[in-house]
C-alpha cells in the first residue's frame, strides 16, 4: 500500500510537469488549429535558460538563498521562452496563416529541429548537470515525499489557478476564447486577432518554461534533446485529455504521469512508453475526441 501511494506521488509530480507543457499545445491548437511541434523545445529552452541563470547566480552570489535562486531562474526562463515562442509565431507561423493546413505543421517540425540544434551548437551536446537545489525529504507514514515534489505540485496548482482565472474571468481570456471560436467575428468586434494569438503563444511558453525549470530541479540535468520525449508525452497528454480543452490537458498530463510511474513500479520500466501510448490508442478508439474533448453539438 505504501509503495502504491509512493508511486502515486511520483506520478503526480511527473504528471504536473507534463500537464504544464500540455497546456501550451492545447491552447495553440484551440486558437489556430495547429500543433506547435516546437513547443517541446521551448520547454527544453526554458530548462536551459534556468540552468544558465543558476550558474550565473551561484558564481556571482555564492550562498544565495535557494528560494530566491529558483524564483529568479523561473522568471528569466519564462521571459526567454516567451520571447522565443513569440518570435517563432511571428516569423514562421503568422506568414503561413491562411495557407494550407500542412504548411505551418511542417514549419513547426522545422522550428523544433532548428531550436534543438541551436542549443546543441551553442550549449554543447552533453548532459548539463546541476548540484541538487533542494534535497529535504519528508517521511509521512512510510511514504517519502521530497520537498522538490511538493514544490512542483504546489507551483503547478498555483499557476493553473492563475491560468484558469485569466482564461475565464478576464477580458484577455474572453478575447482568446472568442478568437478560438470564431476568428472573423472576434475581429468584427474589435479584437486584434493577431495580438491575441501572440499572447496565447507567450502564455503557453511561460508555462512550458516553468515546467522546464521544475524538470531541471527535479532531475538535476538537462540536455538539448530533452524537448523531444517530454514534448511528445505532453502532446500525448493533450490529445488524451481532449485537444483544445484546458482541464483536459492537465488531466491528460496527470494520467500519463501516473501511468508511467505505476507501470514502472509494477512491470518492466523498459515498457513504460509502450504502456503510455497503448493507453492513448485505446482511449482514442473509444473516445476519439479525448477524455474531455468537446462533442460537437452546436446549432448552426
Amino acid at each position: 500500500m505504501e509503495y502504491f501511494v509512493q508511486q502515486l506521488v511520483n506520478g503526480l509530480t511527473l504528471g504536473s510537469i507534463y500537464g504544464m507543457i500540455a497546456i501550451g499545445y492545447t491552447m495553440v491548437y484551440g486558437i489556430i488549429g495547429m500543433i506547435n511541434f516546437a513547443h517541446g523545445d521551448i520547454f527544453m529552452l526554458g530548462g536551459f535558460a534556468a540552468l544558465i541563470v543558476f550558474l550565473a547566480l551561484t558564481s556571482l552570489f555564492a550562498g544565495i538563498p535557494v528560494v530566491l535562486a529558483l524564483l529568479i531562474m523561473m522568471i528569466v526562463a519564462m521571459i526567454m521562452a516567451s520571447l522565443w515562442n513569440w518570435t517563432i509565431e511571428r516569423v514562421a507561423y503568422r506568414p503561413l496563416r491562411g495557407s494550407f493546413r500542412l504548411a505551418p505543421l511542417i514549419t513547426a517540425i522545422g522550428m523544433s529541429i532548428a531550436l534543438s540544434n541551436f542549443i546543441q551548437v551553442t550549449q554543447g551536446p552533453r548532459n548539463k548537470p546541476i548540484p541538487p537545489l533542494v534535497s529535504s525529504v519528508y517521511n509521512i507514514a512510510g511514504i517519502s515525499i521530497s520537498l522538490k515534489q511538493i514544490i512542483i505540485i504546489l507551483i503547478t496548482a498555483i499557476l493553473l489557478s492563475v491560468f484558469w482565472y485569466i482564461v475565464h474571468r478576464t477580458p484577455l481570456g474572453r478575447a482568446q476564447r472568442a478568437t478560438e471560436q470564431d476568428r472573423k467575428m472576434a475581429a468584427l468586434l474589435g479584437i486584434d486577432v493577431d495580438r491575441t494569438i501572440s499572447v496565447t503563444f507567450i502564455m503557453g511558453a511561460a508555462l512550458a518554461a516553468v515546467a522546464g525549470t521544475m524538470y531541471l530541479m527535479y532531475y538535476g540535468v538537462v540536455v538539448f534533446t530533452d524537448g523531444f520525449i517530454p514534448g511528445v508525452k505532453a502532446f500525448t497528454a493533450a490529445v488524451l485529455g481532449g485537444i483544445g480543452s484546458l482541464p483536459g490537458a492537465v488531466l491528460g498530463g496527470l494520467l500519463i504521469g501516473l501511468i508511467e510511474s505505476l507501470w514502472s513500479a509494477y512491470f518492466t520500466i523498459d515498457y513504460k512508453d509502450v504502456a503510455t501510448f497503448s493507453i492513448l490508442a485505446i482511449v482514442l478508439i473509444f473516445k476519439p475526441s479525448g477524455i474531455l474533448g468537446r462533442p460537437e453539438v452546436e446549432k448552426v
Partner: protein
Amino acid sequence: MTPILQVKAVETYYGNIRALAGVDVEVQKGEIVCLIGANGAGKSTLMMTICGSPQARTGQILFEGRDITRMPTHEIARLRIAQSPEGRRIFPRMTVYENLQMGASLDNLKYFDEDVEKMFTLFPRLKERQSQRGGTLSGGEQQMLSIARALMARPKLLLLDEPSLGLAPLIVKGIFEAIRKLNETEGLTVFLVEQNAFAALKLSHRAYVMVNGQVTMTGGGRELLANPEVRAAYLEGGRH
C-alpha cells in the same frame, strides 16, 4: 453634409470570382438604409467588405470622410461600425452574457451594466437565457443575441445582415420596431440587408436594389415599395 458611409465603385473578389462589380452606396447620419436583392446578389459581401473582410480590390470606402478601405477589420470595428453578420456568428461555447460582454469589449465594459439592461428590456428572452451557452439557443434567440451584441458596442453605424432570418413574424415586427425606435430616439444609423423586402422598405428612409453585384435601382423606401419592377421581383408572392 458628408455621408457617414460612402462606398465608391467598390469591387470585391473571391479568388477570381467578382462578387461586387463597382458598387456605389451612401448612408447619411441618422438614416435607415436598406439593401434588397436576390440570393447571391452580393449583399452580404458588401456588408463584409465595409468591415474589411474581405477587402475591396478596387474602389474606396469612406467612414465619416475617412478612408477605411485598407484598414484591418478590428480597427474598422473600433471606429464604431458594428455588424450583426450573416449566419449570426454567435460564439457557441460562451454564455449569452459573455457574448454580450464581447460586444462591449471596445469600451472595456465601461457602459456594460447600463447597456445590458437596455438589451434585456429590448429582448427579454435574452435575460432568461443569459447563463446559457450561445450554441444552445434557438435560431431566433441567436438572431436577437447577434443584434444585441452589435448594439453593445454603441455603434455609430449598425450593419444588419438579414435581421429577420429565421424569426417568427411577430418577433420580426418587434425587432423592426426596436430598430425604428433606436433610430428615432438615439439617431442610430442603420444599414441593413433584407430578404423580407416589404417590411424592410417600409422601415427604411432609402433603399438600394442589388442585382449580380451591382446596384440597379435606388430611391426612397416607400417609393421603391410602389415601384412596379420592385414589386414584381421582390414583393409579389413574397409578401409577409
